[in-house]
């Protein structure tokens, strides 16, 4: 299988404090990996460094042979990330958020059908014209997931996506992730959910005090 995501010596330091020790791993196409660890162990730091939401202190990230340092736009076209807490625009409705992301990703073909399907699946269809700040925490997380899923990608990173979801939504999300695996998408997901940690995915990683190891 081809290598979708390659992380090489990725690290993050804040002065003397090592938030993420040099980390290397790779994910093949259609591979699902879970990331667990205590609060503050460095899971979010790893994910945000991979997506370059924060600047890593060292290392490189390669997606589908495109190096983030050289072809950042190509990597961004292929990588979707769902943060644990998403901030939404005050003046845009949920539907407009989806459309904005699709427009910016040149993904308007079939947008209406895809958006309708996703929103219906996540139970947000009836409230698509609502401003997201009126959503509950769980609904905001679902919208965050649909924002990632509305655009094309080959690597999906999820930061504690089940933290505010009800059981039905968790199983829907996991079904979605399995379906994405069948399409060749690689998924890296951090979670505190014991079922996901122990039984879900092809590989399990543990982060302890900034050090990643495979279990």
């Amino acid at each position, binding site marked *: 299988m081809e290598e979708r995501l390659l992380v090489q010596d990725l690290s993050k330091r804040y002065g003397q404090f090592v938030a993420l020790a040099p980390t290397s791993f790779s994910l093949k196409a259609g591979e699902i990996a879970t990331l667990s660890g205590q609060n503050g162990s460095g899971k979010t730091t790893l994910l945000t460094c991979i*997506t370059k939401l924060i600047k890593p202190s060292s290392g490189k990230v390669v997606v589908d042979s495109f190096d983030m340092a050289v072809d950042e736009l190509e990597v961004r076209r292929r990588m979707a990330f769902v943060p644990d807490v998403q901030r939404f625009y*005050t003046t845009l409705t949920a539907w407009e958020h989806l459309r904005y992301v699709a427009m910016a990703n040149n993904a308007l073909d079939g947008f209406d059908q895809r958006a309708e399907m996703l929103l219906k699946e996540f139970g947000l269809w009836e409230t698509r014209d609502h401003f997201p700040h009126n959503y509950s925490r769980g609904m905001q997380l679902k919208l965050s997931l649909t924002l990632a899923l509305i655009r094309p990608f080959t690597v999906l990173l999820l930061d504690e996506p089940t933290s505010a979801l009800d059981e039905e939504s968790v199983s829907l999300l996991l079904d979605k992730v399995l379906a994405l695996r069948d399409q060749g998408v690689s998924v890296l997901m951090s979670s505190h959910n014991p079922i996901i940690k122990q039984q879900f995915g092809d590989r399990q990683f543990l982060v302890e005090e900034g050090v990643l190891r495979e279990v």
Partner: protein
Amino acid sequence: MRALHWIRSRQEMEELSYWLSLVSYNPKDRSLDNRIYLVYLLVFFSVWWFMVLVWFAGTGASLLALVFPSAILPGTIGLELIIILIWFLTLMVLSLLRSPVAFSEEDAYLVCQMPLKPRGLVLRWSLMPWVRSVIPFLILAMVLGFSLAEVDLARQGGTDPDIFAYIVRGLRAALAMLPLHLAAFGLAWANGVWFMSRQRRKAAGIVPVVTIGVVGLLILSGALASFGAGLPSWMAAISDVLPAVLRAGFTEGALGSALRIAGLADLVVILLLYLSAGRFSPSQAAQETQSQETNRNLRRYGFTNRGQDRKTQKRLGVVRRSAWLPRWQGSAAAIWKDLLQSWRSVNLSYFYHLLIFFSVGLGLVFIPSLGGRIFLILTWALQATRFLTQRLKEDLTHWALLRQLPLKPLDFILADLAFPGGLLLLVSLLGMAAGSLLGNQPLLSAGLSLPGMIASTAGVSAFMIFRYSRIDLLLSGQAPSINELGVFIAAVCAVIPVAVYSLLPGFAGAIGGMVVSILIGFIALNAAGNAFRHID
């Protein structure tokens, strides 16, 4: 009640600390240095305020003599009463619409859950708002007192004033204002609390209506009588009640007895407030006021964007159906988003900015001297830097969303600046066209340089914002505003082309200004793109 008093005292102390922090004084610092600094502050600000008020009084005296040439004292009293009337009516309406007793979100969780006696709560919570409300009235009364002293001095032929007597005139006027303000404030609060406790039923509305009628008539009759209007006999009978108190403050009259009578009225009003608060519900008051109180605190502590966001959220409500969904792709998505956001967040300050740009455009053509134009450009830069980067800043606060979009930094910056820049260009050109018509001056030079000037201002502003952005703050929704240095550099960049076309004559100046402006704009925008890549 002790706990309540303790909480409120801390809040009052925090409020005081906030105001003192503006002059770098920390009330918690007990060192000798700090105490000496306090004495210095007291002396400095007493003198400073006195000078400011005397300066206002000089202008006030001229205005009073102009408006009320034959009866300055009654005219001044009438004016003061009209101001009190307008304020009282506004306060009454606001108190009736929502609880006059305001609670913050913290209060709602803490104070409103405690089994407290509502009467004590209302009285204790009224102190700070009253102090906040009375200060402008005391300043007004002192200015008017000093103004009348200035008038008397002028009448006496400008002899050297007795400074002590001069200060006493202002203080007497303020002292006379104090009980009147307290009575009006207390009545508005008592009515507000009473009406709210009765769930704002129509039948309960009779009490506030009667209060507004009686108090309004009392103040209005006093004002009209002071202006020398003929009044019916029943109105004339009550017309001197309030002017008598104010007159005692402005003249050498019996201030003591006036204050005793007004003080009695205050006691009655405080009793009314106490009685009206028997069924006061703190949780209802919190529901009605916590959002407004939180916004006030956010604004005060510099979180203006968050305060503005909350206001916009409230105004927009829950649902909005999109009417315009174009099929634009790539960085044009940012233009669509900006247009939508701007349309939904238009407010008065937006029009204020546009008015400034129109006026500066007009002035740039109309004012021939370079010095005058530089002054205009400084004003323009101050407004334009903020206007142009409003959306950019907001996008930065949505870092996780923004950073994932596959857009080149420069493309994104240009798209984000396109709408405000275009609007700025259009409004400024309209202003220039108006200036050209009025002054019969050619529009060419200024018009050709304008696009480049906007590009350079936008580029510099964006550069400075990116330069001072920190990712950890952006991820928590906080983007920096443009600082004074940024405004200064933007102004300098905008002045250069203006200087070129002002100093070079004719067509050469116009083309020179345009080329220079475009060059600076190009450099500034590219620097901004580069700074975006390096946000850390």
